[in-house]
């Protein structure tokens, strides 16, 4: 498609001369914009990272506060009108024992209305990690103990799934980000060395990647994760998991970096820079890096899903993040048992953001890969 931009510039019409002077990044943006799914994916990713930033604000109850008598409550939908008057509220739940099965069954009780408001008071936290506050996006109007809301229901320990989901999103997506960053560093370093120097170093690194890729990773990472001492703090576990999952992702990034390096090494402009007497560092930083930045960004985006799946899977198995830490995988641990899901399907709600964000990253990465080479 862009090929025609380049070829038609000779005619000198207004739009075409715009193409002629456009920077590489502008061309990429124009091309990326055309990719509808990629744009949608980008918005979704941006939305999720907003949730990461405002997780505490979006939650309304302490993610670890548990009330045994409120276990496995179903989600409470928000009712916006009360007798035709705008008065958002949820209906409280009344538990009855089914006379036949003796199971506790919850039903909304029209008499027990819990009014809602914006910027309600709740548990204390630091907004953006800086400003101490206890205001949350929504919450029950009063601060009465029995006025509780559970928009997505509660888990087996009676904890609010909505609030836990917000905090879990923060954990899972920051682990993803940190893991990708780490594997990017590894990938650029090893891929760059491999591609720039070539020869036996290249050979060694490439063969190592081949070996790494032919090892079944999950049992290996499971082994590493299981070796984490039980008494480690949440932060230590968090860092360890990040390292473990990034050890999984760097090979693909290294492959992309090396491939680009090899391709660029043959380019005339690199040769020209060499003839002009540029130092190696300068050639890499000023001439080669900008030329393959776009490819790296695309590869990084496509590396996210694997990171997120790894964290979720490890935590799901009980080998990753552990309570009291909350992550998507930890939340899904509650859904390990089919009978539990059959009775309380809302336990599977945390699966939805996992699938949505992976799709979004895939679409976004696909669009970026297509746009990465605006002159191609």
């Amino acid at each position: 498609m862009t090929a025609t931009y380049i070829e038609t510039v000779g005619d000198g019409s207004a739009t075409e001369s715009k193409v002629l002077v456009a920077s590489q990044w502008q061309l990429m943006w124009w091309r990326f914009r055309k990719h509808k799914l990629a744009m949608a994916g980008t918005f979704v990713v941006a939305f999720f990272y907003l949730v990461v930033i405002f997780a505490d604000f979006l939650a309304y109850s302490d993610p670890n506060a548990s009330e045994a008598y409120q276990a496995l409550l179903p989600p409470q939908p928000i009712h916006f009108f009360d007798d035709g008057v705008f008065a958002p509220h949820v209906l409280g739940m009344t538990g009855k024992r089914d006379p036949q099965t003796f199971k506790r069954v919850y039903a909304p009780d029209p008499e027990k209305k819990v009014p809602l408001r914006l910027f309600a008071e709740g548990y204390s936290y630091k907004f953006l990690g800086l400003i101490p506050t206890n205001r949350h996006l929504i919450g029950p109007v009063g601060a009465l103990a029995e006025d509780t809301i559970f928009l997505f229901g509660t888990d087996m320990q009676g904890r609010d799934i909505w609030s836990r989901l917000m905090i879990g999103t923060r954990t899972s997506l920051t682990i993803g980000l940190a893991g990708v960053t780490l594997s990017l560093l590894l990938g650029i370093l090893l891929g760059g060395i491999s591609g720039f120097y070539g020869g036996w170093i290249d050979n060694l690194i490439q063969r190592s990647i081949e070996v790494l890729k032919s090892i079944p990773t999950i049992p290996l990472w499971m082994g590493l994760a299981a070796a984490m001492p039980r008494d480690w703090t949440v932060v230590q576990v968090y860092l360890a998991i990040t390292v473990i999952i990034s050890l999984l992702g760097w090979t693909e990034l290294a492959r992309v970096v090396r491939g680009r390096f090899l391709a660029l090494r043959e380019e005339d402009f690199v040769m020209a820079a060499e003839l002009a007497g540029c130092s190696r560092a300068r050639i890499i930083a000023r001439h080669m890096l900008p030329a393959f930045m776009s490819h790296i960004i695309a590869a990084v985006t496509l590396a996210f899903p694997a990171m997120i799946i790894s964290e979720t899977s490890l935590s799901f198995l009980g080998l990753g993040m552990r309570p009291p830490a909350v992550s998507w995988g930890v939340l899904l641990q509650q859904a390990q048992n089919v009978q539990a899901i059959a009775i309380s399907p809302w336990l599977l709600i945390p699966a939805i953001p996992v699938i949505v964000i992976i799709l979004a990253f895939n679409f976004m990465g696909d669009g970026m890969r297509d746009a990465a080479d605006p002159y191609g």
Partner: protein
Amino acid sequence: MVSYLVRRLFMAIVTMVAISVLSFAIIQLPPGDYITTYIAQLAADGTSLSDAEVLALREQYGLDQSFLVQYLRWIASVLHGDFGMSMEWRRPVSELIGERLWLTMAVAVAAILLTWALALPIGIYSAVRRYSVADYAFTIVGFIGLAVPNFLLALALMYFGYKFFGINIGGLFSPAYVDAPWSLARVWDLIKHLPLPAIVLGTAGTAEMIRVMRANLLDELHRPYVKTARARGLDERRVILKYPVRVALNPFVSILAYLFPYIVSGSIIVSLVLGLPTVGPLLLRALLAQDMFLAGAIVLLLGIMTVIGTFLSDMLLLWIDPRIRLEGRS
């Protein structure tokens, strides 16, 4: 061809050595060692050992030696078929793993066969009928297949099976055959139970392979050699199947090599959710109980299985692509 074979074989051996070192590292990683655990167990039973006895035990197991020496001892006994004792089960590791390893293999192979059986025709169809309704449908299904982690897919399938059919899908055998000795009837029962785990395990790989096949075939469809095949009067269907599909098969097969470790990996988690009697649940349990000889042996055996699978798909590539066979000859 010979150089390719030698190189592949060499890589396979290097990979196996790397896997064995990593497996042993996993055994060694947790704080303490076999003897500490053993002492703790004895203490729990009410016996205690003198320092001299402990020292003697350490010497006996070579625990006072360096990592390398210990590793070599371990590998030597593994080569004799002795994987050590499981601390938790108090039984030889090889006895525990036995059948489970073969069942793991059966599940992985079933998933790979399914991946092939689906990805090949769908990939070809999607490329030849690009932008058709079916192509879009497959693309969407493929994307979802990629996006749903397979343990979630397993959960969802089990949930629907339970909710709408009232059945508990899962396992690899009907109750009557779980502990039965091997017979044709039991094999048939196994085959009947394989499709579900194969679907769960194969979905992501199938989605990926469809994308690979479609992209490769789209690259090939407009090459001059396809035009020449048409120009000599060959039927359109045979033109496509004999030429571009054949060429696009090469990258497809070479990716198969990486699919194998991926599927073996996935089978661990899926087995847990679906309750399959593979090595997966055993590994998890061993890891959680820090039963490290058992865990290390499972990681090692899975790795070796993968290397063999990868090597076989390399051989398939050799058979399929004359360019590799000709390497170094012309």
